[in-house]
């Protein structure tokens, strides 16, 4: 009775979704363990005769199941707000007549509308908001057409860099094939200008913006190979389409 009310109160007072002892004992039963949970029965005062008994463990738990990396998802926005953007990247193989590569692993990451990346802060503690800690980072595997698709928000910009999306491409076994970036088209009515001057939440405008020609990553890309194709509008959202050639 006392133990029950203790657990009950533990739940409500803490406001937690779960409390370990109860969950663990449930799991133990679920796992089909035939031995009753003797360790929680209370007979733990076995210290007579000058010997001591190690405190019993409540469970062996947790009982984990294998989970993929948190990067493996198509919607990478998490808690970040902004203009929606669909990002479609095709990976083709220079060493195979530019044929699509299926099964390649593609990581992307980019900054939020204010120019910030998800990363560890300097405080020594990281928020346990598991659903948002890796915001705007994602991983997909290319389909038979060499395509991966992500849903995200249009990246903002920060001092010294043109708008961009980072991409890291691996082969199916995780060996790096290329680390690169996708640049955005420019012009008076480009998506970058529309978003940064009119979209709600993107307050920076274009003053102080680093254009591709001055960007220390993209400035040598005079042929525009790294520039993606953008369609859409601030109200309807944008679609970025880009093909990346690798040697695999």
């Amino acid at each position, binding site marked *: 009775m006392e133990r029950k009310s203790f657990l009950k109160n533990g739940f409500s007072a803490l406001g937690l979704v779960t409390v370990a002892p109860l969950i663990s004992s449930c799991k133990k039963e679920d796992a089909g363990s035939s031995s009753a949970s003797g360790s929680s029965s209370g007979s733990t005062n076995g210290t007579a005769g000058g010997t001591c008994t190690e405190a019993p463990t409540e469970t062996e738990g947790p009982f984990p199941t294998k989970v993929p*990396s948190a990067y493996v998802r198509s919607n990478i926005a998490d808690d970040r707000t902004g203009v929606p953007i669909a990002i479609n990247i095709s990976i083709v193989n220079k060493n195979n007549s530019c044929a699509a590569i299926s099964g390649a692993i593609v990581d992307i990451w980019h900054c939020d509308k204010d120019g910030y990346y998800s990363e560890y802060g300097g405080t020594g*503690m990281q928020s346990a908001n*598991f659903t948002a800690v890796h915001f705007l980072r994602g991983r997909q595997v290319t389909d038979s057409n060499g395509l991966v698709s992500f849903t995200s928000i249009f990246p903002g910009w920060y001092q010294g860099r043109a708008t961009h999306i980072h991409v890291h491409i691996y082969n199916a076994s995780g060996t790096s094939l290329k680390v690169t970036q996708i640049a955005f088209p420019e012009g008076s009515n480009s998506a970058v200008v529309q978003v940064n001057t009119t979209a709600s939440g993107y307050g920076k405008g274009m003053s102080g913006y680093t254009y591709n020609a001055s960007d220390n990553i993209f400035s040598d890309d005079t042929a525009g190979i790294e520039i993606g194709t953008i369609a859409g509008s601030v109200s309807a959202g944008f679609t970025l389409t880009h093909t990346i050639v690798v040697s695999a």
Partner: protein
Amino acid sequence: MQRMVRICYRKIIDSAATKPWEKLVWQDSYTEFNMQAQRYNNAGAIAGFSDMLHSNPQAAQLHFLVSSAVTGYIQQLHQVIPDIQNTLGKQFLPLDNFRFELIQSNTGQPSKHVVAINFFSPPILWIDTIGNTLLLSANQYNEAGEMLTHLLQLQPFVSICSIQQQ
């Protein structure tokens, strides 16, 4: 005066891990390290994490980048700090924050992959110190209005990592 403390626990996992949760964390973090480290290994010339840091301080990002392999397993803990028990042998510390840390690793030598997960409780009340134990309460009450408490034995890898005096 009330003292609210965050209890922290640094759990170290290496290649000798035998329990399923630890093994999965170890294996998946090593796989992720091998993938992410390719950004810092000078095209394969550097295998050790400490050498990557030495060559490029940006490699410190690997702590964060590799943590993606671990967050799913943190969720499986159901917001309770693992391993650490009260003197009755029950886990009781609520899990608030965590931080994953690469202690050392090497792309060619799995046995050198050692990681730590730092678990942080929310601020809980430190009422008193009794012998080698801390009398703590996570502000839970029973139906009679009594504050429910736990005794936590001082032990290696468990510490008070922050305090608020009110």
